């Protein structure tokens, strides 16, 4: 804990013009990153008649929730949000667990064939996914998994990206800690569960963000595998709404986009609090 403070003492110690410059720089970038998001929210809240108004007003004259009401009238958007939340939650739990276990194993345990197995796993990430869509569909069709959530959950558990990420992060775990636990008689799984997992909280949190984001935003897989509207995810409903071609439909799509982005944002805000150093440092002492 102490270490972090010292590491960035320099920031506090800076002269005020330097700090002003730093904040100014941060704000310039922030404006560039914020503007489209802000525009999305404003477009969803403005009356439809003003949708194409140029220049886009920074502060709209008046706001209305009409587009959100229409969104829920024309689609089962609420159901879609719940379905997506379920899928994302299940995927996060499964993928974070299995990825961290395998990633830790690759980083810290020694076993025969490790390098070959690791390289093979990396290689699986490199085949452009587009050419596997159709064979994948054919397999799922043979399993009778079309129009179920299985194709959206099970294959994703084999997450090479997650394992690679965890392996890279786990390289920073001091081997002494693991050896000490081993001498104390802890089993291999217990070492992972009791010693490693607490140490790699930031990596778990970031992987949770990535898995949540990719599951939540996935359009292709639900599109290909789902038929029954009761199972539709939020992205599918968004697509349905945007293909209806009704009057005022762009503003309704905006309203949907806003709602679809909020859960991801909440997850990020919640998870980024776990980007706290010191756990590793603390346990060495």
């Amino acid at each position, binding site marked *: 804990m102490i*270490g*972090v403070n*010292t*590491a*960035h003492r320099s920031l506090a110690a800076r002269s005020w013009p330097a700090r002003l410059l730093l904040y100014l720089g*941060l704000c310039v*970038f922030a404006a560039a*990153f*914020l*503007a*489209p*998001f802000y*525009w*999305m929210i404003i477009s969803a809240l403005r009356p439809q008649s003003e949708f194409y108004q*140029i220049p*886009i007003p920074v502060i709209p004259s008046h706001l209305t929730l009409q587009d959100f009401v229409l969104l829920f009238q024309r689609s089962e958007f609420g159901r879609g949000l719940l379905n997506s939340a379920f899928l994302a939650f299940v995927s996060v739990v499964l993928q974070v667990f299995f990825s961290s*276990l*395998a990633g*830790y194993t690759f980083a810290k*345990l020694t*076993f025969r064939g490790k390098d070959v*197995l690791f390289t093979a*796993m990396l290689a699986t*990430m*490199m*085949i*452009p*996914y*587009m*050419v*596997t869509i*159709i064979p994948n569909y054919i397999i799922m069709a043979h399993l009778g998994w079309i129009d179920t959530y299985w194709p959206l959950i*099970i*294959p994703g558990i*084999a997450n090479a990206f997650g*394992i*690679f*990420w965890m392996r890279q992060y786990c390289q*920073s775990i001091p081997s002494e800690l693991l050896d000490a636990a081993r001498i104390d008689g802890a*089993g*291999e*799984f217990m070492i*992972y569960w009791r010693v490693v997992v607490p140490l790699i909280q*930031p990596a778990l949190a*970031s992987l949770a*963000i*990535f898995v949540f*984001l990719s599951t939540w935003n996935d359009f292709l897989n639900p599109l290909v595998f789902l038929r029954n509207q009761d199972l539709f995810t939020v992205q599918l409903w968004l697509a349905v709404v*945007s293909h209806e071609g009704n009057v005022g439909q762009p503003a309704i799509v905006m309203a949907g*986009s806003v709602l679809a*982005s909020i859960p*991801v*944002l909440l997850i*990020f*805000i919640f998870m980024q609090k776990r*980007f706290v*150093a010191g756990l*590793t*440092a603390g346990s*060495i002492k």
Partner: protein
Amino acid sequence: MALVARAGSITRSPRGAARWWAKVAPYVFISPFYLLFLAFGLLPILFSLGVSLFNWQGVAQAQFTGLSNYGVLLTDPDFLTALGNTVIVWLGSTVPMVFLALAFAAVLNAQRLRLRGFFRTVYFLPVVTSLVVTGLIFSVLFDPSIGLVNDALHAVGIAPINFLSDPNWMKPTLIMALLWRWTGNDMVIMLAGLQSIPGDIYEAATVDGATGRQAFWRITVPLMRPIILFDFIISTIGAFNLFEEPYVLFGGSAGNIGGTQNAGLVTGTLIYQNSFVFFNFGYGAAIAWVVAFIIFVLSMLQLKLGNKPVD
């Protein structure tokens, strides 16, 4: 796992069982990936490798054509253009993005920074903003007649630029769009990575009189090497699979997916076009396998370079 352990204990002493388990555990821990991959991942990959040896279009019966798809590929001007464009976009976006992400993360990691959580969240917003919205924003910004950027250029006396259809400007515009959209994502990787650096190292450095900048280059960057390496490799895979952004920016029509003179054609859009627009599956698969090979070579190179011991 308990079951496995118990099975072992029937014939071995508890001590032997533990030793046996320590040997087997690594394989058990990584096995879910390989089992699932064998069940779901391998077949599609082998299938696509097989398809690349066939003339297969649409629903029709495929005919075996050997390596002829690969032969055509090597002299296909579209493929060579896409490959060149992808390399430019890959280098042009990956290097600045990794650097920017690391810089953002280093600044936004400081505990004394006010509004730290707010800035982190805002920098992550582009990742969350829907692609449709991003595309609209880009067309509003870069349109030659009504775009805001050209309004600004006009104000200082510069002739309007067709950012989205001038072959000289399309790749820089795409790179800008990628930097805007994905730097926040990489920042999260870096932010997490920074937490793995033990604080007392900095403490020692400060005692030795190192400045913040020196500490960044001498401690942060070397210790973050596994994380930076990860980011580079992931970005390489991402660049060669790039699809959404060039499709939204240039792919107004399916037959002309690369925009003016194919200046915005990248390998990801070319594979999509051949597989899902032309339904020329054999040819699309052949492109994909050549691209996979290129990614593999580039990744292994980076792993080799990145794994060199420090000093």
